């Protein structure tokens, strides 16, 4: 039986660029911005980096294919660099590659960096792109909001909710994240919104309105990881260790088999249970101090709270409206503002979320610092509710 990743790898340093409509910044500029913060935080010279994992989601509108854009941007010294792409889980996937490399003993210090330049398309929303030669011929004509809107209709039908209550809870998800984002200088959107604004916004894909959607932005985030021993030898204390790293990928069951009813995210449930087992978490609601989840749309966050076992099945609407996931709630969610306020540069998001958990655990989160957090969970969901990739990481103090 595999022993899992718990406490085998620690974070030596992290960095995150300012997210936003970075019209005057190239992908390389964003990478350098995140990396400079990260390498300073790590306190090492770049030549100590043995290998790197590079996450970028949408080649066509981003840096192009292969690992070379990272090697060139950072002038890495001909080390092994691996490009990873796994939809919205891409950032966390880069992190997983670097962490696994260190855990395996194949290298001492590894870099994970994600970047995405989404604002070069000339229009709002995620870029229109091919889904593959065969898929393009029969997949429905749907956008990301079109796909996730159906999570709302499926969830509402399953739990026999009325649209008004569900929309109010969805609005609260966004109002809460905007309130958090105001306090974060690196967030893209930094203004509060009201429940009325969220409820009255035009539909993007019924029942998802404008404020139910996360922003679209440019950004980059990165991490340098190593073993606890090396970190200590470099004089580091207050170490943050990886407790769990899990990934679950749809195999077509949700999209083609009757066993899935469209009201939840099957991959999230599976990845979450594996992650809790790996981290030794028995009671997520009391043990997980904070979550950074994939709030591409408010409904995704709401349903994810159940799939992560932080709300009872069918009760997320009540939990959300009761403030359970607000900054002062029992399980604060998106304390940095989330995708809602950062936007979602695909390749960078996962690492940006881990960055927030890392800052919180080290007590460096400034105005939004939570009191004594122990475990931070990050969750990404790539694809559509009916077929997707879910990545989950849990990090906490190294003891």
């Amino acid at each position, binding site marked *: 039986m595999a022993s899992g990743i718990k406490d085998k790898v620690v974070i030596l340093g992290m960095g995150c660029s300012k997210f936003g409509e970075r019209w005057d910044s190239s992908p390389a500029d964003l990478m350098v911005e995140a990396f400079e913060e990260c390498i300073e935080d790590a306190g090492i010279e770049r030549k100590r980096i043995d290998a790197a994992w590079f996450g970028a989601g949408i080649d066509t509108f981003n840096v192009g294919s292969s690992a070379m854009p990272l090697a060139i941007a950072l002038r890495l010294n001909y080390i092994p660099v691996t490009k990873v792409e796994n939809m919205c889980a891409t950032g966390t996937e880069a992190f997983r590659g670097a962490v696994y490399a260190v855990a395996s003993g194949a290298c001492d210090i590894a870099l994970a960096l994600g970047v995405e330049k989404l604002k070069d398309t000339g229009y709002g929303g995620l870029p229109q792109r*091919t889904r593959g030669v*065969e898929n393009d*011929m029969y997949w429905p*004509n749907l*956008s990301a*909001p079109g796909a996730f809107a159906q999570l709302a209709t499926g969830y509402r039908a399953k739990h026999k909710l009325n649209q008004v209550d569900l929309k109010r809870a969805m609005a609260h998800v966004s109002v809460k994240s905007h309130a958090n984002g105001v306090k974060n200088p690196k967030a893209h959107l930094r203004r509060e919104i009201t429940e009325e604004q969220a409820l009255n916004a035009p539909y993007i894909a*019924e029942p998802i309105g404008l404020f139910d959607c996360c922003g679209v932005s440019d950004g980059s985030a990165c991490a340098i990881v190593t073993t606890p021993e090396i970190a200590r030898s470099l004089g580091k204390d207050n170490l943050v260790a990886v407790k769990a790293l899990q990934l679950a990928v749809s195999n077509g069951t949700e999209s083609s088999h009757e066993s899935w009813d469209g009201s939840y995210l099957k991959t999230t449930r599976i990845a979450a249970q594996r992650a809790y087992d790996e981290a030794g978490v028995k009671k997520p609601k009391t043990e997980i101090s904070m979550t950074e989840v994939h709030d591409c749309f408010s409904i995704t966050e709401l349903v994810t709270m159940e799939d992560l076992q932080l709300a009872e099945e069918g009760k997320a609407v009540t939990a959300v409206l009761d403030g359970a996931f607000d900054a002062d709630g029992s399980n604060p969610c998106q304390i940095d503002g989330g995708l809602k306020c950062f936007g979602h540069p695909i390749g960078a998001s996962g690492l940006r979320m881990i960055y927030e958990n890392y800052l919180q655990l080290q007590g460096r989160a400034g105005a939004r610092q939570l009191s004594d957090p122990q475990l931070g969970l990050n969750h990404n969901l790539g694809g559509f509710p009916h077929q997707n990739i879910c990545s989950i990481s849990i990090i906490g103090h190294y003891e």
Partner: protein
Amino acid sequence: MIGITAYGVYIPRARLSKQAMAAANAWFDPSLKALAKGERSICNWDEDSITMAVEATRDCLSALGDKAIDSLYLASTTLPFLDRQNSVLLGEALNLGQRIRSMDVSSSQRAATSALISLLESKIPNNALLATSEHRRSMAGSRSEMLWGDAAATLSVGCTDVIAEYLGAETLSVDFVDHYRGEDASFDYSWEERWIRDEGFLKIVPAAVNKLLESVALSSADINHFILPSDQLRTPAAVAKTLGIDAGTVVDNQIASVGVAGVAQPILMLAKAIEMAAPGDLILLIGFGQGCDALLFRVTAAVANCVPASGVKGALACRREEGNYNKFLSFNNLLQRDIGKRAESDKQTYLSGYNRRKDLLTGFIGGKCRDCDTVQIPRERYCVNPQCNALDSQDDYRFADKTGTVASWTADSLTFDWNPPAYLGMVEFDGGGKLMMDFSEVEAGKIDVGTKLTMHFRIKQFDPQRGFKKYFWKAVPE
């Protein structure tokens, strides 16, 4: 005995108000106001002569049952492909099998009647299908636009269970050029209506009809239903009068409710006549264009047994009022619409990939596992049932005729669609299987989880760069 064995009809459900059309264009041509009565059928953006032919033929097959089909003719002057046999695509969408004899017939307004004569006078072991369909092209603000409509009708021809016996036909081939459409033209160019009436209809049709009646030893007074497809409102009655046919027998061309549907019009009218006929009735059918076809049928007692799912009455009743003339212009590419950057992505169809998945894309065929009975679409090599996952265990399973239910849905305003918002959702099929699909013909506020759906062959996407069209099946609320 040979004759018609079944019929089927399809009229697009959108019916455009002619008042709205005239209101938009009367500033330029006030005479259009005189034509502003009633409505006309218009194709949705995702309909064309192929998709309508699929619908009409399915309707015909609903009456014909599972009788064997030997051949499939498709008649139209608005077929989407000039060189790619359209009837073969039609046959694959109908799952008629590869051994079907097929042919496209075109180039004239009497393409349908000429094809029909050819079938009636050929040896047909079982049944032959004649699908006729027209997605009419006319210039904005033209009289044609006010008078024409889009529709399809299909007949089956055979020797058993004949509902309208073929008595004979007469053809006159005359290069009378009342209108024409050159090889690179999108629209017809036509001559003065009065000349067409006097020198065309009133001279050519009677000559053919008189010869036909003489050959079968019948008189014009015996005719119970006289069909003369024409967008000239009063001409059929004038021709009937010349021939001594009773004015009451003239079958109305439906100019005020559907519009004249080009090549499909004679077959649509024949279906209409059969639907209202009594056994023993004589039907005289004309096809006019570069001369004239005249065909005579006698309705049999078996007509009572021929009940297509829709028929003419059903197709007329399945309607949605459309008051937006701009939508019609847009759907027919009659104006250059700003469709936004999302519409700019390349729409190439990779033909080798298309060919690999043709059973799914055209036939709407998935699989049923022999080991666990799980029905699934798309069919992959391993069964989708998590308890099974058997390899290569699935038999063909066709979804086109299955009904389904909405499990989840949305109205997507972000994605590019020719008729936004794009409705789509997860469909759970009765009998098993599910698929995330595009919807069509959805009316706002009339869809929710649990709504019943039927499956329809529609245009999925245009590739304007290369002149190709992709088709796939869409779900339509019942």
